[in-house]
């Protein structure tokens, strides 16, 4: 198994380098000079030249790239044009909020998704199954901002159960977490149901039933174990995509997380900040994919022993 792990990590490194290169190139082909774009057309050219020199933008692009990679490897993503602060510091300030939001959203998605999926599979082709799967598909199809706006309107404005925005208390975190988790809950429910339905047709399930085990025991003790393998992998993958995909939820609820940083960076044309947030979140996604792969190796004895 360890050779598989090593191989998987080795594959991730060129991908990571490719990601950094792609972002670097994309942001360097923006028409016009980044400092002029940031400061405006009417600033003294000498000031623009001085700032460009200070930021190393007068160097050839290849030199800039290697300098960026060299510094990034040491955890330095440059200095924000607008905030005049180290990008890594800004990201690390916002990161805990995004982590809290993503983990809470993941819990919401797992609980709703798995329970709905199991109930739908057990009640296959009955009313509950159709109802839950209808809701799941609705969850998958709803734009995240719609879920957020509906929750904000109903539970914050009409019922006044939760604050409209902010992220300073547990109560304030609930609506953003549901908004972000709802979509993933739909995917998890659909996957849990389809896997469980498939597993329930296996011979060992028939054997478990034949030896007199109760249906509850058959599902929990035998079917779920095998049905949940791909679901667990998907769940891990979803945490990393939530960490990066919280942009919309953070925008609607005013959560000061990484997604909002990226949106602010675009609005203020702050290239180093945008570059830093995208590189950082992509690293998280690659790490999440790696973790999901390794977890699958650990959980599935067929793969573990085969290696």
């Amino acid at each position: 198994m360890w050779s598989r792990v090593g191989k998987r990590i080795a594959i991730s490194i060129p991908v990571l380098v490719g990601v950094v290169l792609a972002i670097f190139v994309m942001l360097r082909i923006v028409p016009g000079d980044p400092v002029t774009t940031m400061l405006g057309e009417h600033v003294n050219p000498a000031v623009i030249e001085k700032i460009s020199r200070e930021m190393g933008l007068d160097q050839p692009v290849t030199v800039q790239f290697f300098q960026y990679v060299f510094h990034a490897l040491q955890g330095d993503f440059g200095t924000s044009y607008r905030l005049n602060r180290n990008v890594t510091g800004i990201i690390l300030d916002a990161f805990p909020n995004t982590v809290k939001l993503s983990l809470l959203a993941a819990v919401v998605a797992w609980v709703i998704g798995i329970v709905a999926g199991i109930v739908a599979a057990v009640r296959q082709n009955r009313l509950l199954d159709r109802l839950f799967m209808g809701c799941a598909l609705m969850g998958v199809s709803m734009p995240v901002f719609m879920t957020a706006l509906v929750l904000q309107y109903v539970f914050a404005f009409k019922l006044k159960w939760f604050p409209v925005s902010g992220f300073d208390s547990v109560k304030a975190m609930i609506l953003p977490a549901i908004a972000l988790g709802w979509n993933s809950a739909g995917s998890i429910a659909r996957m849990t149901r389809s896997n469980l339905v498939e597993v329930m047709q296996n011979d060992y399930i028939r054997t478990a039933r034949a030896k007199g085990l109760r249906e509850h025991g058959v599902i929990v003790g035998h079917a779920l174990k095998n049905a949940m393998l791909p679901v667990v992998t998907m769940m891990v993958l979803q945490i990393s995509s939530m960490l990066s995909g919280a942009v919309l939820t953070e925008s609607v609820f005013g959560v000061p997380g990484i997604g909002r940083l990226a949106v602010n960076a675009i609005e203020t044309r702050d290239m180093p900040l945008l570059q830093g947030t995208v590189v950082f979140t992509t690293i998280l996604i690659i790490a999440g994919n790696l973790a999901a792969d390794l977890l699958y190796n650990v959980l599935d004895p067929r793969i573990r022993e085969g290696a």
Partner: protein
Amino acid sequence: MLDHSKEPGTEGLENRQKEQADVSAQLGEADTWKDQLKTLVRQNKLAAFSAVILILFLLAAVFAPIVAPYDHLKQSLTDRLQDPSLAHWLGTDELGRDVLSRVIFGARVSLTIGLVPTLISMAIGTVLGLCAGFYGGKTDFVIMRLADVMLAFPSLLLAMVVMYTMGGGLINIFIALSLVNWAGTARIVRSQTLSLKEKEFVEAARSIGVRQWTIMFRHILPNCLPSLIVLFTLNIPSAILSEASLSFLGIGAQPPSASWGLMAVRGKKYLFSEPWLSIAPSVAIMIVVMAFNFLGDGLRDVLDPYLKEQ
């Protein structure tokens, strides 16, 4: 007399193709499609219903100037922020424009965004996937590592970076979404090409000297079509959602465009007094996306159970 304009040994293949064409004609190619359509309607009524809904949205988009009760750009400040009424079924926005008319015109934006970038990205993905699977070796390695890089990006953030580079606007959304979404298609086409290129019909074509390019596009590609049709149906909603999200973040469609995402974000300011301004376009997005998902699921079951297993 021999026809020297033909490649040597292609007569056998042509005869076989002719035989196949005869058999197809006897069975009726249209019947195959009709049968599949019938199976879809019989097996999955929800998918059939979704197709009807999508056709209605498509018709509304095409005939928007006739169907919409008002001009979607016409402002009337005296009628601003009106509640839903018989005159304005979904009320009016902050500039007095009829929301229903804007939702109907918004279907043009969303369906175009759903269809055009999906077609472009799938065309790119199909060609690259075919090349990777067919040629293998270094070509495969380079294309697949490129796909890995694209898949590693959070798609919304990547689209945001592209929009940052090129600026807002619908044409730039076309380009951003086309560049972002090709990798998934490339992976699926590659895996199918890998298995198809080992089949006897490809071997037969090779042995009689058919050119590689012809084998890829005339022999392998048609066999990938069922998966591609299903994938196309399932990729459209994600493109629609991406456009809506980008517009919602203010970096997609620009005013006065009647994009559903843009309408939702502009209505957000009035969420607590006139919630329909945000909710109406969001519901339209949800209905279209759900319909495409149902249709995609139904088509997958009929056309390509292999994709379901994947």
